[in-house]
């Protein structure tokens, strides 16, 4: 397999702060590579390096076989593009936004409309050309940003947390878009995520990153197979916890996450394991209630993030869980910071990694 981008002993420091340490990485033609790691681990810097937006402080960076230097960076940069985690759009219509890179590349004007329509079709925004981009919903805006990158048909497409802060519907569309683009257009994709699920399903390879270093590299099966050892450093990944598993009399497994905080799991396991609960699978209530859910905890809301139709909450129940509720129920329940709430999830909703 030929490598589109190769990093050799790349380090990057901002002022005195090291963000990447001796990273060696090859991105192969046609693959989807996921960079998996908590916030602040260096994923975004690594993507910016691959996008040729920042130059390494030391080490070598080759793009398409060429050593990247000041005199060729502007040319090479046109063959790679990055979709930021925080959706950034230009003032103006969707059409104006998607057309930007085409204009820069001096693609003949008479081809724009068709290329733009194609790109919008892929992200399922057909007919959105004349809409004011900044007035679309968060998910639609992110899809415009992806279309704006797709239309360029670069060799390498970089996506920084493309589904974070999106509702499940938009997240699903984007995951499908990633798969389609990789499959049908044979675009090489590097994707940064801290979503375990995304990392398990989409990519051909995973690179685990923590504290600016690549700690593990391989297929999802390989990486998740021996993840337990590294997962200690993954505490910052949403709803992922490390603990000690013990079988129960009922045939389920009780995982002790430390200090007596226990989560019940259906899968039979023993010993050191890591577990993950999808935010969508957690039920939030203001009062204790009877249900079949085996895991019920009482806690306080410590963070509220508005995602448009959805609201993402962090609830501290001894461990901090991320929970998603619709805007409507959030309002009906009159939730605030410090509100006392209960969270509940089934034992079968807990994924053992």
């Amino acid at each position, binding site marked *: 397999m030929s490598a589109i981008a190769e990093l050799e002993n790349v380090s990057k420091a901002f002022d005195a702060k090291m963000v990447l340490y001796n990273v060696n990485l090859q991105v192969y033609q046609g693959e989807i590579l996921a960079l998996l790691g908590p916030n602040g681990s260096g994923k975004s810097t690594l993507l*910016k390096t691959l*996008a040729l*937006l920042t130059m390494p402080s030391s080490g070598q960076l080759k793009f398409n076989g060429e050593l990247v230097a000041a005199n060729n960076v*502007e040319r090479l*940069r*046109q063959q*790679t*593009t*990055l979709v*930021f985690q*925080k959706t*950034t759009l*230009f*003032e*103006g*219509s969707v059409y*104006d936004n998607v057309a*930007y*890179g085409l204009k*820069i*590349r001096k693609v003949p004007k008479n081809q724009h409309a068709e290329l733009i329509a194609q790109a919008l079709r892929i992200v399922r925004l057909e*007919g*959105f*050309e*004349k*809409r*004011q981009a900044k*007035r679309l919903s968060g998910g639609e805006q992110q899809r415009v940003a992806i279309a*704006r*990158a797709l239309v*360029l048909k670069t060799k390498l497409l970089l996506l920084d947390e493309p589904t974070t802060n999106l509702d499940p519907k938009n997240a699903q569309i984007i995951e499908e878009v990633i798969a389609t683009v990789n499959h049908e257009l044979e675009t090489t994709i590097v994707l940064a995520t801290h979503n375990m699920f995304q990392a398990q399903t989409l990519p051909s390879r995973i690179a685990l990153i923590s504290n600016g270093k690549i700690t593990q590299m391989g297929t999802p099966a390989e990486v998740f197979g021996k993840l337990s050892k590294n997962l200690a450093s993954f505490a910052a990944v949403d709803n992922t916890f490390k603990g000690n598993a013990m079988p129960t009399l009922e045939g389920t497994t009780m995982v002790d996450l430390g200090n007596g905080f226990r989560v019940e799991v259906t899968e039979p396991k023993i010993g050191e394991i890591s577990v993950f609960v999808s935010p969508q699978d957690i039920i939030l209530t203001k009062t204790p209630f009877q249900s079949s859910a085996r895991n019920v905890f009482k806690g306080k809301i410590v963070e509220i993030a508005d995602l448009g139709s959805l609201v993402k909450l962090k609830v501290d129940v001894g461990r901090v869980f991320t929970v998603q509720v619709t805007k409507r129920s959030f309002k009906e329940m009159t939730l605030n910071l410090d509100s006392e709430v209960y969270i509940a999830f089934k034992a079968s909703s807990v994924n053992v990694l």
Partner: protein
Amino acid sequence: MVDLLGGLAKAGHLIITGDPTLYGIVFRSLLFSGVAVILAALWGTPIAMLISLRNFRGKSLVKGFFNSLIAIPTVVLGLVLFLVFSKGGPLGFLGLLYTPAAIIIGEAVLITPILISIMITAIEAVDPEMINLARTLGASESQASIAVLKEALNGVLFSNVASFNRAIAELGVALMVGGNIAGLTDVLTTAISRYTQTNDIALAIALGILLMVIVFAINTFVVLAHKLKVYYTVGRSPQ
């Protein structure tokens, strides 16, 4: 006492009948201030871009410097420029004193700080990722800077309009380096000042009215043009 109503009536007459002295002064005011804004924008924009898009030591000091220059009294600047342009001064060999070019350059210097300050504020209000966005979509460094300027378009326009307002309404520089020579360097403010002094109240009022009308019209035009642009892109629904 000054006969205000009589003065107003005569002023109206002068405006309606298209008095050539009056409109000559208006034309020069528009021309000098307009060219001054173009000059100031040409040299102020790159300075504003450098200051707002780059990080360097003493950045806030530089910004503070331009901010405080806004408050410089026009007569003080006028005096400094007079000494510079004077035949005995450092740029005296150019022979610019008491010429339109002296007013244009003087006013351009006067409005540069206000232009730069407003533009810096506007550019800094743009998402800091905007420049990287343009670059990752393939833009060269110049094209990326232009993309940022475009995002700051309202502020950039406002900086130009505010500068024009200051240029056309200032007296000190135009008087000291222009000399208020009739038919050559007399502009709205210097003429108003002189005609008030010589008790030609009607002419002074007429010029005052026209000055207000010009400033008001230009500001209204900019606001309307902005609204129209928004309407054009937002108001139309898809399909």
